[in-house]
């Protein structure tokens, strides 16, 4: 008897679980840097979906999309962390529930 190899659905379920953990973290944490890390986690889980479908549908577009997502994540990291440093300089905090100047 032969054992079937790992089905694509399991990879997709894993990526859905990681995405949900990222959403929950981004919603419940107060520290802006941890929220940022949760967003990176979500981007990463979407990359896993891209690679899985690229592998099982035998196309290379998923790999290229994952590459582009990584470039966007790098750009986001540079700008986002610069914004955090600037907010900390002016407000002495980066707790997301205390930064509410734009709230009416």
């Amino acid at each position: 008897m032969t054992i079937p190899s790992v089905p694509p659905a399991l990879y997709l379920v894993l990526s859905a679980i990681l995405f949900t953990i990222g959403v929950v973290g981004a919603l419940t944490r107060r520290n802006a840097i941890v929220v940022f890390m949760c967003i990176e986690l979500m981007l990463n889980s979407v990359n896993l979906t891209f690679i899985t479908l690229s592998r099982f549908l035998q196309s290379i577009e998923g790999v290229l999309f994952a590459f582009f997502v990584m470039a966007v994540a790098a750009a986001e990291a540079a700008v986002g962390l610069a914004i955090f440093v600037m907010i900390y300089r002016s407000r002495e905090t980066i707790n997301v529930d205390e930064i509410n100047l734009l709230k009416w």
Partner: protein
Amino acid sequence: MTENIGTILQWLVFLGMAFTSILASLLLITRKNPIHSALFLVLNFLCVAVLYLLLQSQFIAIIQVIVYAGAIVMLIVFVIMLLDLEEELRSGLKLFYSKVIGSVLAVLFLFGLIYSLAATSLKGKAGSYTPEKMSANVKAVGEALFTQYLFPFEIISVLLVTAIIGAVILSKKRS
């Protein structure tokens, strides 16, 4: 039995990496110290990189380790050290209900995703990149990137330059 050894190994690596990455991401969102969160983020990225290798995407696995686990997490750790944050206090009741409702909705979203996976199988026409062709992964990626997808590639480079300029301008001291 001998032909099953590769598959058994694949299952073992997949299950180990899946559980480790879920555990690492759960620890990431529950630790109070942001440095610990950053280190669990690295663990999660490395586990996902191994899964990429299992999916025969060597290029993305290497880029994952270099860009995500190397550059981005290094930036995050650097900023955490720069900001000298106190440990995060448990938030008061102010936002409690919105957090509970948001988490419940996120879990419902997970159930929706899993249901959609269980209800349908993988559709779509299979492309021409068979596993044999993908084994020369870097070459295939480079060919597609510099011929058919040259324009998005150039746009990504413009985006990166914009991000660098933006970061420099944002972190410049106002005179």
